[in-house]
């Protein structure tokens, strides 16, 4: 009885996720202007690189957490596909 509810809750939760930018955009913006891109240029932006790489990692971790949570949801018959398809 609760299975369709779980899907509804999931969709509701995903819909509520606010828009976000790729955390790596600031890195691309800064390093993309460097021509040629040298070790020296990268070293000059090491803090930016690590801060945003950490954010990207956190985001990946959060997405993986959602995926793992979703895997725990029991199979739900969809209107377009029979259960066990």
């Amino acid at each position, binding site marked *: 009885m609760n299975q369709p509810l779980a899907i509804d809750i999931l969709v509701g939760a*995903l819909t509520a*996720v606010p828009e976000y930018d790729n955390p790596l*955009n600031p*890195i691309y*913006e800064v*390093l*993309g202007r460097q021509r040629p891109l040298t*070790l020296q240029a*990268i070293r000059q932006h090491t803090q930016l690189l690590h801060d945003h790489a950490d954010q990207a990692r956190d985001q990946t971790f959060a997405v993986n957490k959602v995926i793992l949570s979703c895997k725990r949801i029991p199979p739900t018959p969809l*209107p377009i596909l029979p259960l066990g398809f």
Partner: protein
Amino acid sequence: MQTNSPYPLAHSAPGILDLTVTLQATPSVPTNLTCANIPPLSFLLLADRLAELYEMVFPDRPEWLSSEVVDWEDETAVAAAVERFLGRVSALFPVHDDIWDVDLEVVEWRLYEIPVIPMGYDIWHDEWEDLKEPAPYLLHMCYSRHDEDRSYRRDEFEDLYPDHLTPRYLEPHRLVETLRQMALPEPLDALPDLIEMLDHSTGNSFLDVGELSLAEGGGYPPWNREDVEWLAEEWQKAKPILERLHRLLDWQNNTPEEIGFKLTAVRDALQDAYQQTLTCPAATK
């Protein structure tokens, strides 16, 4: 069968999965995204670490940082950049500067541990017969003699070197100082160094540690300024000793007769030193 989804695409979750955008003929790309021609994040992080090591190891060569262009398209290009760095480190002290396994994790490991090449003997792993004389001669003299406590054991040293026997209680490592004082001619002057290397007691890490014993003893040291400076200093001390040592190992080494001549010279030097310690025990190390 009904095919309409209860969750129409028009209401997809913004920012997570927007199929309407994906399905457009001309996808909308955020204008601030300028990642074209920039290597992936994993390469950038590795480049940053490589740059950090350049700064640490070669503070006087900033031009190497500005001349290394990070236009890496694949792991082979990353490995080549790391090999260039390690090749420059090789001028300070020996390191493995070839990367055979071009896998990002393997490449990255080289930037966290110094792949130093120790020059010492792994006497319990090396095949002694593969070593150049007089190394096997000295090893057998130390470890293959008849043991009074185990009289059933053969005296392998006697069997292997019947023409170059030495007194039973002559222990080469106890003769090092006496041999040095004897001022032996080249290339025999390296004999005390060789004895100490086989005994792992030179006091120099490059000479006392073998590749396998390094791996068994905790592995490679991490990159830091102190260890780099220390390794460079140790290598400067080890280099002349190794050069001297190779002169001895390569000397008279082409035919059995030549090797016999070399062993006779070594045995005579050892016996002279041994006699001196018998008459003047203080000379023993």
